[in-house]
């Protein structure tokens, strides 16, 4: 009886984790087919560039997202100031902007040929080369663009972490002579470390995997290299090997981060008390805080949105038709389904890992959650290959035994798409849920177990309510991510099935930015609803909770 029970939990984590790990493993399988010729060429020419640019891009984006996300999260969670009520959810909106779209809009505005520089030239009679103006389409520009749309990861996770910190610790550090600001550096920040670094890691992983922005900005990274090797040289194996290298590197970073804090715990041992009231500050300070929080919203959302609107206004008649409603509906339902699936899986995995500390459970889950660092196209192929293989097998067997052909059951249906989203966004949901779980002390689990609850019930009765904010955060992040997801959707979607992201991309890739503006805005609008609903419910859950 004892053994059997143990195994159920282990298997119910292990099996789905193994399934989700397959696409990543497919990529790693490429290592078995050496491509010395291509590698020699890459090493001699562009590999160093790829590595350095990728590192700079991910590092820079990580730092940018970390700074913007953490500071705004702290301000929003600690202070009472004008406009806070709106900023707390406005700060999330840049997440809904596909990175390449914001890249297009800023290029449109700030490029040499754009309105700003044109006005400058006309005003001062300058000509090309007469003056210096920061170049948007550069590595620095890419870092800025990605930071602007990715900092909400850090913001959301950090805000939850800050809000859930026990008031007792704040009091303890104050009796020891620390001002609130010093408390932030010495206690609040380190305690929020899992959440903040999770957010940063997500931003960095997304930066590693980004293709659209860097491609447009002419920055050669690992990802552009992967596509160049695959599409340009037609060498899918070497491309997969590059992807595997990238993934291993990310894995190494993640493992190092975990290892460096393996002994540290982040739950409060005593009876949890919720944070003290937000601190009121004087008007000058309020304005300062308001400006600080407004800045990322302004740059990451309002300015590009205005540009998009101005583009969209010129030809909305062309694009706004009935078909457009279908696009919105498709995008919304797909994102909602994927978010729910992904969060359920994340709960299962995170909780399973909490229950079973053994390597057998930890490793497959870690591998399954690597998909976020891999370019979406590569993941999609990783999903497609095994699914099509399975379909082929089933089809063959059915034909042999029953004389019927089953065709494509899994690939080419929404199943393939949802599986790909699960693989790709598991990292997002898993890491948010895990960061939340780390703040729940283990004696909660024990207490519930000793009162006769089975682990699944403990999850339902204890962890879910305590994790509510983290779960909502995860839902929202995955929802918005799926909404703007492009590469996997592009390859794996069934016939006659389009989403807003696909439409946006098609128009944008044809360099028809004005037409692309409307679907891009629609992505933002569709995200707006859950963003507002969830942001409210996050706040109310914290208010209602002790």
């Amino acid at each position: 009886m004892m053994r059997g029970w143990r195994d159920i939990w282990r298997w119910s984590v292990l099996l789905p984790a193994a399934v989700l790990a397959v696409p990543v493993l497919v990529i790693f399988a490429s290592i078995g087919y050496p491509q010395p010729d291509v590698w020699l060429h890459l090493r001699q020419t562009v590999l160093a560039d790829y590595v350095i640019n990728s590192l700079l891009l991910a590092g820079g984006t990580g730092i940018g997202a970390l700074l913007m996300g953490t500071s705004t999260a702290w301000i929003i969670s600690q202070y009472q100031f004008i406009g806070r009520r709106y900023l707390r959810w406005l700060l999330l909106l840049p997440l809904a902007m596909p990175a390449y779209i914001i890249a297009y809009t800023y290029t449109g505005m700030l490029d040499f040929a754009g309105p700003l520089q044109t006005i400058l030239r006309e005003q001062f009679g300058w000509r090309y080369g007469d003056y210096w103006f920061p170049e948007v389409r550069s590595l620095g520009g890419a870092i800025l663009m990605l930071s602007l749309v990715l900092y909400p990861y850090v913001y959301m996770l950090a805000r939850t972490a800050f809000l859930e910190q026990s008031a007792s610790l704040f009091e303890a550090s104050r009796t020891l002579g620390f001002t609130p600001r010093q408390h932030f550096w010495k206690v609040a920040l380190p305690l929020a470390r899992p959440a903040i670094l999770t957010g940063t890691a997500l931003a960095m992983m997304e930066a590693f995997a980004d293709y659209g922005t860097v491609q447009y900005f002419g920055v050669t990274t690992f990802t552009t290299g992967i596509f160049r090797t695959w599409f340009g040289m037609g060498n899918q194996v070497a491309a997969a090997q590059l992807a595997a290298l990238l993934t291993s590197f990310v894995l190494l970073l993640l493992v190092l981060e975990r290892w460096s804090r393996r002994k540290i715990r982040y739950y409060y041992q005593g009876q949890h008390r919720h944070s003290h009231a937000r601190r009121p500050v004087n008007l000058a300070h309020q304005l300062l805080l308001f400006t600080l929080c407004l800045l990322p919203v302004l740059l990451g959302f309002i300015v590009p949105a205005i540009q998009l609107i101005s583009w969209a206004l010129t030809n909305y008649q062309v694009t706004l038709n009935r078909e457009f409603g279908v696009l919105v509906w498709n995008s919304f339902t797909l994102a909602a389904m994927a978010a729910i699936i992904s969060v359920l899986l994340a709960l299962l995995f995170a909780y399973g890992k909490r229950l079973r500390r053994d390597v057998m459970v930890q490793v497959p889950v870690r591998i399954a959650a690597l998909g976020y660092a891999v370019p979406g196209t590569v993941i999609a192929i990783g999903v497609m290959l095994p699914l099509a293989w399975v379909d082929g097998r089933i089809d063959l067997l059915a034909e042999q035994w029953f004389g019927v052909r089953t065709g494509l059951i899994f690939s080419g249906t929404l199943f393939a798409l949802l599986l790909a989203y699960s693989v790709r966004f598991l990292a997002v949901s898993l890491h948010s849920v895990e960061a939340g779980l780390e703040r729940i002390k283990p004696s909660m689990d024990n207490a519930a177990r000793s009162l006769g609850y089975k682990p699944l019930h403990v999850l339902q009765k204890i962890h879910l309510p305590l994790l509510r904010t983290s779960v909502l955060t995860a839902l929202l992040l995955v929802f918005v991510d799926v909404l703007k997801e492009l590469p996997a959707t592009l390859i794996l979607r069934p016939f006659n099935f389009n989403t807003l992201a696909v439409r946006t991309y098609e128009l944008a890739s044809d360099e028809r930015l004005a037409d692309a503006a409307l679907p891009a805005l629609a992505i933002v609008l569709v995200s707006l609803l859950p963003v507002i609903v969830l942001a409210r419910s996050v706040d109310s859950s914290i208010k209602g909770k002790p």
Partner: protein
Amino acid sequence: MLNLQQVAVAYSGNTVVKDISLSLAKGQIGCLVGPSGCGKTTLLRAIAGFEAVCAGSISLQGNIVSNAEQQLPPELRQVGMVFQDFALFPHLSVAHNISFGLRHVSKSVKATKVKQLLQLVGLPDLGQRYIHQLSGGQQQRVALARALAPEPNVLLLDEPFSSLDTELREGLAREIRQILQQLQITAVMVTHDQNEAFAMADMIGVMAQGRLQQWASPYELYHKPASRFVADFIGRGVLLPGTVLAAQQVQTSLGIFQQRYVSSLQPGDKVDVLIRPDDIVHDDSSSVTAQVADKAFRGSHILYQLKLDSGEQVQCLALSHHNHAMGEHIGIRLDLDHLVLFPRDH
């Protein structure tokens, strides 16, 4: 040094601490005792500056730090605190928790100090551990060491020894008392262990339902309780009904007691007399006897619940050799130093 004037504190409108006035001189130790939920922690929190006072004022070293209008932020008060639930930092090692409050201090000084304190609380080898790797009592000791480290002006201790075994708590209490006196730190300690309060305190305050019932020296508190509640709460004892006689004497079923101090009581008034278990000495040779109604073994002693012939019950603490059976009649003798009387209400 520490001065409270008619302090009141409320949680969302519900006043849980009322009209508390007390003061301690520099280096003095005050203990707060009282039933669970009477407001001890709340009072400490108000002194530390975490709760606003809704009436009255708190002053430290002559400066008002809290009144109904304004509160000095906690970090400017130089008040250390050992929290009831420890409030240790989970992300820091034991050593870093302890050195947390040591700011503007060189590394080597920090290290020495941490070593000293770890030694003091009996955890010399656990500096590198994290909090979740400690037992409950070990955590409590770290909390104590952390609060002591910066040598605050005022130290607030909320049941700082509750998770420690007797031996350790007594040793630690003695050493802490020494340190506090040596550094002239004023301290307020909450404890449920009256022995501890008696041993540590210069002044003891008994609280009930948010009010301070008595603020007095340990001896006075025990021997001259100001109210029935204090009499009942401090030490053991029963209130034996009696009647005041003309000659300032009180008649009870245990005999007649002399009332030694002045009182406004009139002959014929009904009163209750406080009888402590140690007022009744078990003496096999005594002619007065009582019946054993209940007994509790407590190591060195047995606490007998005795039924007098009049039907009233008293307690008697006898050395544990005197192991008498339930129902047995045993000899008792009265040995009353102070007569404590409370007028009967009706």
